Each structure stands twice: as C-alpha cells, then as structure tokens.
C-alpha cells in the first residue's frame, strides 16, 4: 500500500514537472537561449585549415 502511494507520488511529480515543459516547449526555448554563446565558442576555436 505504501509502495503504491510512493509510486503514485513519483508519477504525479513526474507529470507536474514534464507536462509544463512539454506543453510550453521549454526544452526547445532553452536550447535556443544557448545557441548564440555556443556559436561564439565555435567561431573562436583555433583552426588549422591546411590540407
């Protein structure tokens, strides 16, 4: 009985966290936020273009 209660609590907590992330597309929006700094980093990396 206690195990079922714990399982239900975990599932509800999982839904409470993931459903808003899913619905409001927060995962995509977060990746968009880091795009500019990542591109800056790639642009600043030293390259040896000799072939």
């Amino acid at each position: 009985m206690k195990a079922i209660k714990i399982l239900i609590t975990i599932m509800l907590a999982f839904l409470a966290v993931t459903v808003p992330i899913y619905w409001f597309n927060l995962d995509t929006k977060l990746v968009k936020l880091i795009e500019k700094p990542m591109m800056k980093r790639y642009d600043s990396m030293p390259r040896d273009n000799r072939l």
Partner: protein
Amino acid sequence: MKKKKGAADNLKNKTAIQKHREWRGGLDTAYDYMQWCRLWGILIKWAASHPVQNVRAVFRYRWMFSYLTVPSFFDRLCEGQRGAGLRGARNNLNYLASDVTKTLTTIFSADMHLHPDSKKAEELNKRIICVDELLPNLLGKGFPDCKMILFQEYPMYLPSLINQHSPVHYIEQSELYGLPADVCPLPSFEAGLAIEDDFPKIGCCMLTSNMPCDGSIMTTMLQERRIGLPSQVLNVPLRWKEDEVQDYAVEEIRSAIAFLEEHTGQKFDWDAFKEGCEIWNRQNECKFEKWDMNRTDIPPHTGSSAWLYRIFEHQAVAGEPRALRNDLKVNRILRKQVAAGKCPKTIRHRAVLWNTPCNNYANFNNWLLNCWGIESVCEMIDIHGTDLIDTGSHESMLRGLADHYQTSTMRAHTKGGSEVMLDSLWEKYEEYNADMIIMFDQISCKGVGAINGLFEEGAMKRGIPMVRVRQDLMDPTSITRREMRNDVNIFMQSVMKEEPVDASLVEFDDDESW
C-alpha cells in the same frame, strides 16, 4: 469578424519556435507527450552514459549543436499529424534517435580528437570501418565484430536535415578555400568539414565510392587528405540497368571485401551476412506494405518522417533486427487505421514528389498538407533498394548487394538511363492515383537539371498539373524555405485557383528557424 487562428499563429516570428506544443485532441496529444518523454529518455540515457566525453564532443564540434535541437526537429516532422500517421512517425523517429545516439557513443569513444594518446580508443578504432555515407552499410553485416560507420552521415547529412543553418559555415569555408561555389552543397559541406578538421578522427580504413556524383568524387580527394586512412574506392556502375556491368559490380564488392579483411584482420562471415540480407528483405517487405497502404484513398504513412526513415534504414540499419521490429510495430499501427477506414487529415490533392527533396526544409511535406491539403502519396526519394536479395548462394548474395548499391539513394533514379527518372514518374503517377506532381528543381544539380524540359513536356502532354519548386538541397542562403513555399503558393492560387486549408501558413517568416 474574428480571424480564425491557424498553425502559424503559434509560431514565434523568424525562429518559428512553437509558443506551445500542438494540441491534437486529447488522445493524440497524450500520445505525443509520451513519445516526447521517450525521446528525452533516449537523449538523457545517451548523455549520462559518457557525460564528460559527450560534453566535450558538443563543445568540440559545431555540428553537434544541431543534435541538441532534435526534439524541435521531431516536432516539425510531426506537425499536423494525427492517428496512425503520428504514431508511425514518432516510433520511426524515436528508433532513429536511439540508433544515432548509440553510434555517436561509438564514434566519440574512438575519436582521437577527444581521446588523444588513448590506447582504449586506438583498440576500438581497429574495429571501426568508415564508409562513404552513400554506400549502404549492409556489407558490414559480414564483419559482425566490426562497426561499419557511414562517415559523413553524423557530422553532415543528419545535421543538414535537423538544422537548416548547419551547412552554412562549412560551405563558406569551402568557398573561402577556393573551391567552386556552384557545386552541390552536399560535397561543399563535406569539403568544409575536412578543411576545418571537424570530422571525428576514427577508423582503421575507409571505403569511398563514386556515389552519388562527380561533386562527391571531388570532395573525396580533400577528405582523404584530412582523414589519412588507408582507403579504397568501391565503384558502383552508373548504367545499372545493363546486365553487362553486373560482373564488374560484383568484382568491385569482392575487392572491397578483400581490402576490409586485410585492414581489420577479420574474415568475411557469410552466415552473418546472409542473416543480415534476410532481415533486410523483411524490412523491404514492410516498406512494400506501407506503399500498398498509401495507394488507397486513406494513405496512413506519408511525408517527411516516412522518407527520412527509409533513407536511414536503407543506408545505416539495413539488416538490423531492431529496425525490423520497429517496422513490424509501425505496420501493425497503420494496418489498424486502414482497416477501420479512418483518415484523420484533410486531403485535397494526391501528389507525386519527384527529384531529390530539400534537406534544409525536411518538413516541407507537412507544410504542403497543412497549408494546401496536398498529400505526398509517393516520393522518388523513398523508392530505392527495392529488389529482394537472393540468399541462396554467395554469388547470388553478392549480386543482390551489387544491385542494392546500384539502386541506392540518389542512384536509383538519377543514374541508369532516362526511363528510371522519366518513365518511372508517369508510372508512379498512375499507380498512386495522383492528380498533381511536385517537381523539386535542385538548382546545383547539373545532372537532373539537364532533363527539366523533358519533365515539363511530359506533364503538358499528359495534362498533369506540375509545380516546380526550386531548392538548393542544403544551402538556405541561396533559396529559402519561404521561396520554396512561394513557388507552391503561386501555383495553387493562380493555376489551381484554390483557397488554402490554413491561410496562416501561406506566408510567414521562418528564416531563422532551425
């Protein structure tokens, strides 16, 4: 009067990021959510398996950033989908994610850029065979203790689909280096990767090829200088419909096998190869069943996720038991919907899409259906490697494999003679009971560009409405997604004289979209 809200109203200006995910009705939205959780489970499992290595890979390789946008990419490929179409798409895409992350783990574990002087990486590399990404890796089933990796697939081809801007920097590098700017973006992207030293440093040997065209042959020379592995060309005959070339094709494969045996120290395992061919035959049968279902009035599985999955399956996971299990599961889902006579989409037109689709607009099919009700019932890019392999003898298997190569992606129709490109189009038009043709005009492709006039003449002679959609494969700076949509908009408004299904999708700004 209140303006009716359309799908584009949910997109942010320029980036086209969804303000919130799509509402597809209770059941379909719940299903989509569960598959999104499954995708994130795959990504988290991958990240957690080798956290330091994977973070270093993301920071080392510009193209790795595109993989961070995969959830958004899958959303775009599933835009507007309901029922079996949604379920089929999500299952296919999540299987792809699962396989790609496994391969990335192998690549990065062996990558000498990430693990210089590592003995463990060196040992792993002895069992990695690199092949040109357009050479299907079914041959690798004969080397079960080795991993055959499509070399350019992961840094180049997949990122070009996932994020339209991923090729731009690399194409610029190849042009700055002095290479011609009018070459197809695919080899330009590959050349740029070689120039920037952005290919992972893996493998014990490399099989290159003459696929699909001269542009790729040119870029192979640059790549070989950077990669520095022992390499051999596996030549695939162009005139693949001729019996005279088949002996040559088989000899090329025998020679490739000998080369791989020499460099891996492994003997070719005919039993394992036979098993791989038999699984591939069953995968093909699953695809034939999907095509049969798409010939009905209620096609269940069409569009971007279908052709993308087919390309990946044919090139990278032919002969893979897990891929077959996914196919069987998806076919069960599709069959159920067709048997129930359901079709949860608005179809006004059944279109045959011909010539190579545009990587930088991978979800173009979704827009066609959602905006104008144009269902992509048949696509040229989906039709390759369709001959079953006779596993009765070593010789018949080699002939089957030779045929598999000759009829692979970007070979099955663009080489072999005009009948496979031209006549095949009219045959498919009848077979699928289509009522219009969407002809991709890849402006950098000199080969197919040479017969554009024949397509137009043929369509006029048969009274078939045909719209030409210009695109530049994977360079969004020369032809944008907006311009592609405009080609269709002008046709549908002025020639077909129709109103859109969703007016908000006719004109919107997604230039900065991934």
